């Protein structure tokens, strides 16, 4: 056996340890849907929490539609408050899903196989939450179609030189492509569920969702072409979406926004926040459902490494903003940095540096990366940190710009918090419903991994390796 082959096999053993067979994988993953008893009490608790959060979100939206966005804390000069902070925060969280499913597929990182499905689900749900904010921030969401170019009696068309209209196209494309990518990955798994379930009515539902998939080699051939190209398309897409979001700020002349480092630093921040959210769900998921041999310590370790790397890029962005303010010699930029360091919101700024700059550094230690408690805590800090980053960028830049006469303060109202925690609840609800009704791990890709690991010597029924030699050449 050559050295490369051996290394490859060792890696596969790390990612898929233990004795598996195709049917055991089906049972382990499929039974989460087919057997409701596999769901622990925590599942019901979180669905209840998510349901309450969703109700809070609905209440906030109804009151907002009734009263208008005056119920929010937005004011002059801070016209962008929680709505845009939360929009950017959520959309950033979504990015790890696309990164895991598309970028890691293209670079043939097989460890993505056990985490891509729920990372993709996370993307879709996060973008759904994100989309709500600009939609409601328009004030009259029932005329949201005005955002799109369509022939109208006023003869008006969108201003295509504005990043805000780029955002409309980017986010719409992003959620469409993410949903397609998710669905196409689910087709073969729906077919597996169709054939496994004993309930005839449920089988029909799966049959319809699987489009009558029968696993034909010709179909797989076209399927893999489509899947790979879709990954190739999503990779630049994910970079473009957050770059465009960052241009909403960078193209303007507001001190603290007009910085060229924004696109790469926003993208890195998105991946950073996204991996934190993936870890937030992966850690309890694998514990509650006994998936430790599918989402292994190696997976957590590597995700932590990506988090550390992107965290460093993000922190480099923070430092470069300070450097830029000093080196540019622009007094407004210098005043902004001083305001961040010592101004009325300085506490939030230092919390940001702690959460995103200092806390992830513990991940340099391999032991910390293998410790789920440490990882979970760091992930929470990163999620908070990334939210604070958007607070620091948006209201803190707006509240003091060029003219001291137009300075102001920003404080969110109870409805801002209602909607923010509401979307978190909605996200939790969707994620836990997803755990219940959709295979959380891509079954066919895990089988592919198992085949790569063991070749033809996969046991038929009991997860035992068949005796070697059969069909040996």
């Amino acid at each position, binding site marked *: 056996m050559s050295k490369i082959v051996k290394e490859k096999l060792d890696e596969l053993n790390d990612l898929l340890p233990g004795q598996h*067979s*195709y*049917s055991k994988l*089906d049972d382990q993953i499929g039974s989460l849907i087919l057997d409701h008893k596999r769901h622990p009490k925590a599942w019901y608790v979180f669905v209840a929490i998510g349901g309450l959060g969703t109700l809070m979100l609905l209440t906030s939206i109804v009151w907002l539609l009734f009263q208008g966005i005056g119920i929010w804390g937005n004011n002059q000069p801070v016209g962008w408050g929680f709505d845009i902070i939360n929009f950017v925060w959520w959309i950033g969280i979504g990015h790890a899903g696309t990164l895991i499913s598309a970028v890691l597929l293209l670079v043939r990182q097989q460890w993505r196989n056990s985490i891509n499905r729920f990372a993709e689900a996370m993307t879709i749900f996060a973008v759904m939450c994100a989309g709500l904010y600009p939609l409601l921030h328009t004030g009259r969401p029932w005329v949201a179609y005005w955002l799109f170019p369509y022939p109208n009696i006023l*003869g*008006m*068309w969108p*201003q*295509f*030189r504005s*990043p805000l*209209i*780029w955002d409309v*196209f*980017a986010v*719409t*494309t992003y959620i*469409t*492509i993410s949903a*397609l*990518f998710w*669905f196409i990955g689910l087709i*073969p798994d729906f077919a*597996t569920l*169709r*054939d*496994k379930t004993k309930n005839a009515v449920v089988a029909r539902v799966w049959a*319809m969702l699987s*489009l*009558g*998939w*029968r*696993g*034909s*080699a*010709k*179909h*797989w*051939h*076209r*399927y893999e*072409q*489509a*899947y790979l*190209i*879709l990954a190739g*398309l*999503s990779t630049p*897409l994910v970079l*473009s979406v957050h770059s*465009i979001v960052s241009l909403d700020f960078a193209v303007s002349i507001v001190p603290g926004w007009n910085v060229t480092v924004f696109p790469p630093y926003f993208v890195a921040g998105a991946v950073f926040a996204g991996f934190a959210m993936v870890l937030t769900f992966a850690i309890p998921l694998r514990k509650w459902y006994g998936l430790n041999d599918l989402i292994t310590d190696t997976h957590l370790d590597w995700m932590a490494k990506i988090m550390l790397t992107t965290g460093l890029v993000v922190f480099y962005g923070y430092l470069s903003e300070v450097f830029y303010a000093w080196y540019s010699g622009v007094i407004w930029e210098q005043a902004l940095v001083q305001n961040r360091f010592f101004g009325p919101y300085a506490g939030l700024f230092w919390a940001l540096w702690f959460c995103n700059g200092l806390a992830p550094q513990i991940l340099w230690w391999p032991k910390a990366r293998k410790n789920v408690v440490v990882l979970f805590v760091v992930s929470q800090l990163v999620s908070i940190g990334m939210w604070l980053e958007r607070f620091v960028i948006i209201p803190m830049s707006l509240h003091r710009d060029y003219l001291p006469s137009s300075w102001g303060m920003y404080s969110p109202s109870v409805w801002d918090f209602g909607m923010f925690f509401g979307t978190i609840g909605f996200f939790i609800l969707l994620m836990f419903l997803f755990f219940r009704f959709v295979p959380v791990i891509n079954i*066919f*890709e895990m*089988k592919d991994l198992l*085949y790569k690991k063991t*070749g*033809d*010597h996969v046991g038929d029924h009991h997860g035992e390796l068949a005796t070697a030699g*059969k*069909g040996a050449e």
Partner: protein
Amino acid sequence: MSAHAETVDLLYGVCAEFNAPGDLIRAAEKAREAGFTEMDCFSPFPIHGLTDAMKFHDVKVPWTIFGAGFLGGLTGLALQYITSVYTYRHNVGGRPAFSWPSFIPVTYECTILCAGLAAVFGMAAFNGLPKPYHPVFSAPNFDRASQDKFFLCLENHDGFDAAKAEALLKSTNAVNVARVDAEEAGNWSQ
């Protein structure tokens, strides 16, 4: 399309079940060498090397995606050009009417959107999906084809010798060989 629409031949083909992907690949190769050209394999996950063994190669999906992406990008650019230069021309910061660098993001997003839609819908269309009924579903034990078993079907066509196909499949590592009938006549090879 079947050349014998008037003959009622409901035999879909002869199907064999295998325990391991390697057996399936070898059987497909053997069948091809024996002159069976119309065949399909069924497996719970994509097996590389199988389409080579079947001598099946198809690039309709990638070209469709390319075409759709190209047209999508062109449409996006045309939309911006027509609206910004003709139908709603106005001065924004002194930029020319056709300020193409700022039109790149929307053009790009339109390219990706159309290409992505073409990837999924093109894949489904060329595969003939959705197709709720297919005769192969009545092959014995076929519900395992999406779980842990591997199937090879030599399909009925003009000059198809079912007895020869059966004999050939029985000479492989197949655990089960059976003739499968369709409920109605039709071209089931897609």
